[in-house]
């Protein structure tokens, strides 16, 4: 019965992607992309990947859609009609698709427990991680402890994306006050936003520190906290958001997060172990693992929050008030 849910959701996903090809209104394209992201988060839940579903829903359907809408506000909403539509892209896509489908016939069937992917490494993680790391969430223990170096690389990638966006766009500070900023006439939105924003930040902190016991962790928490501040900036105006969280402070915050992560590794080296060997952090190895994982997840959360908010500031401060068509 669960397979039918899977089938139906995948069919809906295919219809959404097909519709995106033929639309000329880019606003609708971006909204369909948000729907596509939410549907794939649902599919991830039905495929037992709860952490991935959480991240895809918050990052794909949240931040990606907001940034694309911010770009549309600057570049225009309609796509021009293609005069010389050729058959060549369709041919290329057809040949590639046929080759890929011929390749998938060789793959192991979906869901069987004795597929080659479930041998050697995965059973070792599943069996040993409750004893060596002691956390219920195996994805967090693999992400933060067994493959902690990859996660450090990912945090540095996110940080360098912020450097790239700030180098390309930069946060524009207007010296004169901008009275038109924010949604001044929406009283209902003001009241509801004041109610909701503290709850969103509280939820982000819950997700951050509960990532050891359920789905969650640093990335999701950082994105959710950034979403709260983005809501504040949208409803109350960008100058007030700059007054609450300064852009320069965000740059330092992002650097601090990466520094926190790397310094845990250096500290464990100074204690006599390898880089990012959490067993050295306390007298009991399992307690050391817990300390290490909490601190590095905090570093990741701080960096991701600062980077996402910084990128939104960069996009949001470029837009002038006029309607771009």
């Amino acid at each position, binding site marked *: 019965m669960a397979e039918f849910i899977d089938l139906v959701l995948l069919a809906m996903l295919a219809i959404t992607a097909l519709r995106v090809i033929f639309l000329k209104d880019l606003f609708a394209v971006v909204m369909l992309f948000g729907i596509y992201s939410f549907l*794939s988060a649902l599919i991830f839940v039905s495929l037992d990947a709860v952490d991935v579903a959480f991240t895809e829903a918050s990052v794909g359907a949240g931040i990606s859609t907001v940034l694309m809408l911010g770009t549309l506000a600057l570049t225009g909403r309609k796509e021009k009609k293609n005069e010389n539509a050729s058959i060549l892209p369709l041919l290329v896509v057809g040949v590639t*698709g046929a080759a890929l489908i011929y390749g*998938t016939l060789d793959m192991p069937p979906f869901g*069987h427990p004795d597929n080659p992917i479930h041998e050697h490494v995965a059973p070792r993680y599943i069996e040993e991680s409750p004893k060596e790391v002691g956390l219920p969430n195996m994805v967090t223990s693999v992400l933060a402890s067994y493959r902690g170096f990859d996660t450090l690389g990912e945090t540095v990638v996110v940080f360098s994306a912020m450097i790239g966006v700030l180098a390309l766009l930069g946060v524009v500070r207007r010296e004169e006050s901008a009275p038109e900023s924010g949604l001044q006439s929406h009283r209902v939105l003001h009241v509801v936003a004041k109610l909701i924003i503290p709850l969103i930040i509280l939820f982000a902190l819950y997700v951050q520190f509960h990532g050891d016991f359920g789905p969650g962790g640093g990335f999701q928490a950082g994105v959710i906290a950034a979403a709260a501040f983005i809501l504040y900036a949208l409803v109350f105006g960008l100058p007030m958001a700059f007054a609450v969280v300064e852009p320069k402070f965000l740059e330092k915050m992002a650097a601090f997060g990466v520094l926190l992560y790397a310094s845990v590794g250096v500290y464990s080296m100074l204690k006599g172990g390898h880089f990012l060997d959490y067993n050295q952090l306390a007298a009991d190895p399992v307690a050391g693992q817990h300390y290490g994982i909490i601190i590095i997840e905090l570093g990741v959360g701080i960096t991701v929050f600062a980077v996402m908010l910084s990128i939104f500031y960069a996009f949001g401060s470029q837009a002038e008030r006029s309607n771009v068509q």
Partner: protein
Amino acid sequence: MNFIFDYYNYWIVVFLMMAGFYIVISAGNLVKKVVGLSIFQTSVFMLYISMGKVSGGTAPIVAEGVTQYSNPLPHVLILTAIVVGVATTAVGLSLIVRIKRAYGTVEENEFEDKDDAI
């Protein structure tokens, strides 16, 4: 019928990949190309997660009474991939904003020839 159930996930993933690929190579507008690239990325994530699923297993969170877990390793890889994907999307979109500022348009066939004048 079993054969279709075995491979249905992979075929839909290939269809989504090709839809995203078609948008990237045939759309004229740069923002639509970036949307197509994101669709392509998300379909690849679905391929990995489908490979990691064990039928009869649950999410890889230790709970009492559960003997069979789905494979946590693809989840970790795809979590990293999602975040890296949004980072590259953000840089790509800011490049598009700069192109608009420099050439006045984001349609590919309009600024293609202007670019050769370097």
